[in-house]
Structure formats: structure tokens, C-alpha cells
């Protein structure tokens, strides 16, 4: 079913990758199950749950996201121009093509692939008040507004510093690279692209208490033997099993 596959593709790869969270957790945190059949043989397993979500700058596992997608809320469908290959990454230099900051260049600091959005550090900003209470007017903060990657921003080609369209291609060594369509030059991925809340870069990850050390992780202890898992463990523990099971029938 085409419709089903499209619905399952809800949370984008960029969001998953930048969060460094397991997919099962994101799914669990997003779930809004209203009713589910008991897990028993007499029921045809069905569930009533929210299937359409409005994605915003709030990440799907956050409380704010849950609040924006409260049960009973219905938002209009958002139409997105298809972007089959995502080419924007955190830390990329882009030029803004529309609005008040048109022609200015900046670094991408936030990506919402579900909406084709990027946010550019310190550009295309608006002001808003937070913490407004009775007797306190709130605090004014400056925050970036999202821009559409299809029409509103252009990736900068490092060879000439001008905006361009980009595409993924393979080098002769079989490496996947981002290439500028205008000049054909490679646009290298920024270091910030692999940043997650757990580490800035993979090499600078700080080892936590319960982590397995790299030596232990990469040491090869497997030796192929003509035994099943249970047979080998039983032998190691000194359990002898020589009974022959009775013939059984499967149907």
C-alpha cells in the first residue's frame, strides 16, 4: 500500500541522525494510542491512534511537540515540494535568497527535514516575548525563522562563494560526495554535520561509565565451531545432554 509506507516515513532521517536516539524511542515518545485491542487470540489486532502529526521546530519526542499535537487537534495538511535527496547539513554556509536578509550568507544551525526547513544562524530573525506573566511583560528574545530549502536558501559553492544547487554523486573511488551543479566542484560536509547532543564529533566522544571500551568492542573472540549456541554453552557449564527427543509433527 503506497499510502501506508508514506505514513511510516514520518520522522525524517536527519532528525533521527542528529538526535542520536534509538528509533524505537522516538516512536514510543510520539505515540498517541487512544485504544488498542487486548493482546489475545480472539481479537483481530487493531489500534486507534494518531496518524497525522504537524511537524514544527519542536522535535517529535519533546513535550512541546506532544502539546502541539494534542488529542483532538486537527491541523491543515502541509504540502511539501519533493526533495528526494537532502543536501543541507548543520554547519553549511548558505545564502538567503528571499526576504529582508536576501543576499546574506550564514551557517545552518537547525534542520527540520519533515518540513524542508533550515534555520540560518542570526539571519531571517524575528523578535518574540517569552515568560509573559501578570505584572511582568516578558523577555524579548531574538529567534531565527525557518527557510524552505527548495526556494529560499542556496548552498554556497566553496570555489566561488555563490549559491548553487547540489547533488549527490559518486567519485571514482566509490565515495559518495556532494557536488555543486553549477561548477561540478565537491562541496565537503561540514564538521558540525555529525554533531549530536551526545558528542560534537565522533572522535571527541567522552566515554561514559557504562560504555564498553574500544578494545573490548573490537576484540574478536568468535571461533566457528560445529555446535549450536545452546550446545556450546551447555558444554562450557558442564551440562551433559544425550537424550534423543521423540519424533514430533509440525502442523
Amino acid at each position, binding site marked *: 500500500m*503506497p*499510502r501506508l509506507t508514506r505514513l511510516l516515513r514520518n520522522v525524517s532521517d536527519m532528525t533521527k541522525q542528529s538526535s542520536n536516539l534509538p528509533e524505537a524511542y522516538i516512536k514510543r515518545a510520539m505515540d498517541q494510542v487512544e485504544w488498542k485491542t487486548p493482546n489475545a487470540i480472539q481479537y483481530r489486532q487493531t489500534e486507534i491512534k494518531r496518524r497525522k502529526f504537524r511537524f514544527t521546530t519542536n522535535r517529535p519526542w519533546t513535550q512541546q511537540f506532544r502539546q502541539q499535537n494534542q488529542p483532538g487537534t486537527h491541523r491543515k495538511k502541509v*504540502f511539501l515540494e519533493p526533495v528526494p535527496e537532502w543536501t543541507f547539513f548543520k554547519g553549511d554556509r548558505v545564502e538567503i535568497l528571499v526576504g529582508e536578509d536576501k543576499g546574506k550568507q550564514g551557517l545552518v544551525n537547525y534542520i527540520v527535514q519533515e518540513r524542508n526547513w533550515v534555520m540560518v544562524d542570526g539571519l531571517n530573525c524575528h523578535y518574540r516575548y517569552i515568560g509573559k506573566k501578570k505584572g511582568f511583560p516578558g523577555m524579548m528574545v531574538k529567534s531565527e525563522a525557518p527557510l524552505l530549502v527548495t526556494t529560499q536558501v542556496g548552498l554556497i559553492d566553496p570555489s566561488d562563494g555563490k549559491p548553487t544547487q547540489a547533488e549527490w554523486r559518486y567519485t571514482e573511488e566509490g565515495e559518495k560526495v556532494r557536488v555543486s551543479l553549477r561548477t561540478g566542484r565537491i562541496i565537503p560536509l561540514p564538521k558540525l554535520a555529525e554533531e549530536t547532543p*551526545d558528542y560534537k564529533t565522533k572522535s571527541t566522544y567522552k566515554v561514559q561509565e557504562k560504555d564498553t571500551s574500544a578494545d573490548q568492542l573490537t576484540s574478536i*573472540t568468535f571461533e566457528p565451531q560445529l555446535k549450536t549456541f545452546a550446545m556450546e*554453552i551447555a558444554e562450557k557449564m*558442564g*551440562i551433559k545432554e544425550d537424550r534423543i527427543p521423540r519424533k514430533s*509433527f*509440525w502442523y
Partner: protein
Amino acid sequence: MTTDKYFKILPNSAFIHTSGSHKALSEFFDNEKNWGESEVKVGRAWKLDELRIKSNEDLHKLWYVLLKEKNMLLTMEHAAQEENRLFPNPERIDKVEESMKNLEDVVKERNRAYWLLETGETGERPSSLIEDELGREVHKMFDEHPVPMDHESEDTISKWQDVRNFQRLMKEKEFLEKRRALRRVRSHVCKLLRRFPDVDMEKLQQQYPEVDVQALRKRKDSRGHHDKNLS
């Protein structure tokens, strides 16, 4: 003494189950320095390729390490809920579960290799696509029985007409669902064309292979409030 006779077969070590540190019940709880923390950082789950290079004994040990960790996390989650407090980093549970799933997959992989080599069968629970009572194709996991299947005692009442009726209705339902889904995609693509007249048609076709985008372009519902309409 019959029990003595039985227990003598196994060495004593098989019955003693010890864990690294003898903390008894408190092993169900997290380290005390993590209590009340708002964030407890951990690494990622074990990947399949990392588990494939480990010996069976290592995997066996790791399974119990993971199981203890999962028990601990579920206890802490429950305790936090009881106290109406925040359980830090709930994704830890999913990471442990993912690791356990990967570990089980690797063990199954090894067992399957052994059985295929020795007997030519996978050694797993047999299953196959069968036609059920209503004439639907379903994937059935078989059960183990001590005696072979008795074909004679099966229900001999003819359900032929009922099954035919059911099949007809089911096919109709499937057809309607399919048509509805296609219509939904078609209308979605028309709305996209209306909103984005400059859209790359090839990319659009790539994303919606079940419809003919060029033909939809000419439709009335694809006309937008701009001068890029085709007809």
C-alpha cells in the same frame, strides 16, 4: 535418595548463579549517585556487526548484563513514576532492548547455520503460507504435535458457497481500498502541482510512481492562481 542421584550429574558450579557484586536487592536500582539526576548519559546500543565477532560465551554473559540493566531501568522507571518524579533518559530502555534484539538475531543466525549444515533445515519453528478456512492466504506458524495430522477428523461440512460469498466481498473491499488510496495520491499530486508550478517533474514522478504526473499536470485540479498553467 533420588534427588542426590540426579544432582550429582551436574557440577556444583552450574547451580550457583552469582553476579559481579553481591548487593542483593539493591542491584535492581541504579547507582545512588544517579538518583535525582536530570540526565544520565550512556552510549549507543550494540550493533549486529559488533556482536558477530563475539564468542557464544561472551554473548551469553552479555545477555545477562543487558537483562540486569533492563531490569534496573524498568525498576527505576517504575520508582520514578511512583514518586511522581522524572525518569532521566528513558531512551536507555530502548537502547538495551535493541542490543538484546541484535544479540538474539546473531544467536539465531549461528544456530541456523549449524542446522542448515547438519540437517538441511533451519531448525526454527516451521511456518508457511496456507489457505485458511475463509480462503485467505495467511502466514501460519506451525505447532508441535506428538501425533501426525488426522485428515479424516477435519470438518467435512461444505463451506463452499459461504467461502465464495466471503471472497467476493473481501475482493470488493480490497479493490475499493486500493482505488481510494490511488485517488488520494492523485489528488495530492494535483494539489502539489497547483501550489508548486515550477516543481521538478522527474523528482515528483520518482516520489509518486503510481500516478502519471504529466497527465495530471493537464487536469483542471492542477490549475493554480498563476500564469504557468498548461491549459
